[in-house]
């Protein structure tokens, strides 16, 4: 999709994980080498785009805290230089490029769940919805109580599995009430959580990342 829009895309194989899981679970010293690795790998690029809002939130909001914990002033400066160039996919397209129609075709009934970190940390606003509204063939339906957390929360889903499950069941209930066949969002982790809940209930609703919808065309589904 990005190449269709005329961008040169590279995927540096040296990248691994941004360290969010470690950092947010409390294993913050263990996350510091991952922070360093991220900065080293992505520093040379003009723009870094990620299909995961919470990973972008980690880099932009929490890397400075991590650098502070490491007591590394140099790292903090490099983080501050890199962080503003790291974007979540929908905000990159709408805010940075001013593109709302990516020429996608997706003939399905779809509902959109705004993930917490995209909504409240990155404040992507309606950027994903603007992109979805321009998709040909789509039947976009509103999700009730859309801004409520789905209950994933990283290791929260395992550590506080019961509370997480209670939140998930309400989210699934709202998704099912829309009659949509597809629920889309901009975070892989929430997709895994909501998708896992829907599949366990044999709900017959699929979860699909926004990027997959935007990449679909009449030629390539």
């Amino acid at each position, binding site marked *: 999709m990005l190449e269709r829009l005329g961008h040169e895309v590279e995927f540096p194989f040296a990248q*691994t994980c941004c360290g969010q899981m470690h950092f*947010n679970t409390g294993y913050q010293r263990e996350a510091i080498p991952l922070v360093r690795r991220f900065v080293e790998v992505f520093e040379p690029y003009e723009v870094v785009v990620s299909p995961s809002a919470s990973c972008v939130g980690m880099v932009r909001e929490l890397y400075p805290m991590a650098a502070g914990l490491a007591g590394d002033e140099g790292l903090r400066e490099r983080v501050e230089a890199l962080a503003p160039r790291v974007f979540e996919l929908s905000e990159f397209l709408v805010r940075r490029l001013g593109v709302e129609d990516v020429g996608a075709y997706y003939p399905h009934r779809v509902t959109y769940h705004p993930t*917490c970190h995209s909504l409240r940390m990155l404040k992507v606003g309606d950027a994903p919805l603007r992109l979805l509204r321009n998709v040909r063939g789509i039947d976009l339906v509103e999700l009730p109580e859309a*801004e409520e957390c789905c209950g994933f929360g990283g290791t929260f889903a*395992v550590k506080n*599995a019961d509370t997480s499950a209670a939140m998930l*069941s309400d989210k699934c209930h709202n998704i099912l009430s829309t009659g949509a066949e597809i629920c889309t969002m901009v975070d892989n982790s929430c997709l895994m959580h909501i998708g896992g809940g829907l599949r*366990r209930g044999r709900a017959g609703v699929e979860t699909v990342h926004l990027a997959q919808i935007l990449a679909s065309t009449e030629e390539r589904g």
Partner: protein
Amino acid sequence: MTLKARRPDAFSPGRTPPFEETAKESLADAQLRRNLGKATQTIRRKRAAAVGEMPDWEALREAGRALKTRVMRHLDEYLLRLEESVTRAGGTVHWTRDAGEANEIVAGIVKGHGAREVVKVKSIATDEIKLNEHLEREGIKVHETDLAELIIQLAGEESSHILVPAIHKNRAEIRELFLRKLGVEGLSDDPADLTEAARLYLRERFLSAKVGISGANFAVAETGTVCVVESEGNGRMCTTLPEVLVTLMGIEKVIPSWRDFEVFMQLLPRSSTAERMNPYTSFWTGVSEGDGPQEFHLVLLDNGRTNVLEDERGRQALNCIRCSACLNVCPVYERTGGHAYNSVYPGPIGAILTPQLVGIGRDPGPDSLPWASSLCGACYEVCPVKINIPEVLIHLRGKVTRHKQDRGGLSAKLNPENAAMRAMARVFSDPRLYELAQKAARVGQWPLARGGSIRHLPGRLAGWTEVRDLKPVPRQTFREWWRESRGEG
């Protein structure tokens, strides 16, 4: 209600269970889920409307944050100024380090006047130090006069919400309690009827009590004025009718000047009860001859607060003005209720305040609270003084984990979570190991994957597959696809 009454909390001696254990009980309580869901959703909608009509809400929040931040930075100076002002106005100020000192001072004042009964307006700080239990042990009967506090006291339970302590109870449950405890006959479950029964019972207490006890929402350093913000008028009765008034407040409640009310009196009512103006706001400055209590004591409570001040990131928790907006929007609180937090400070603010006040590494209950959140950020969005609760939660998770790792000895090292996290950090540090791990997972998952889904995970991960499936590692990973299609890597 299946919740056990009078369980020990983070501020009582002894150990409390971790959040995830107590949450299990409340999550299974259908009546509690219904009562809480209904109440929090209603107040959430009302708050949004009350805040929405303010054109300068964000500027007010910023002003509130700035004021509180300045207070914390110069707390010592403001407290000394407050003491001077209160003393000048005819009051007496007592400095107390902990619950024991505060309880003794209050009990001493009550006994000094030969009083056997006191009336109290709702005060969380007194719940924190377990003042009621202490006074009862000294043979002094305590009457809570806030309607919800009275309900809780009659039921022998603890508060489950900062502002609405009986939020977990519905009116049918309250009617039954009043029939049993107040001996009222022919009572309906109409709220007006229930309130009237409580009013009749409380009036007698107000008129006979010699000593009143209150908390404080604010105390002005410049003038020595103490302020209580409430909705029922019971606070006004408690602070004006008795001969002697004792106010107990946490040291973080001081504000610099009278003018600061301009900010807080707009922020607090709209955030807490969704009201444009608070119904009963009482102010008193020391003692006024022939008007109200003729003896006034202000008890300043530290109880861990100066320790919190040491932590530059964590201390913003002390900025809290107890509006409870964060509880009402919290998806975790909405489902587990306040009792699951095992603290007089429940919800998101409790999750950052409680472990800091009692100290990290002392009790599994408070140590577990920073994890009682999905980090959704709804609390930060509504906080009237812009406390970055998610940031402090993450900060405290780090502190608790480091404390366990550094002081936990061998058992901490062998802890399965610790071992797994360290192993994963090593794998993530090396792209080659990372790709090998993906391949290994694809091979290793075959006994678990059935029909394109993993339905059972072993060990601690079983919490995931209790209610969710997991997609197995695909036949081709993104990296493999990229390599194949571009011939890179």
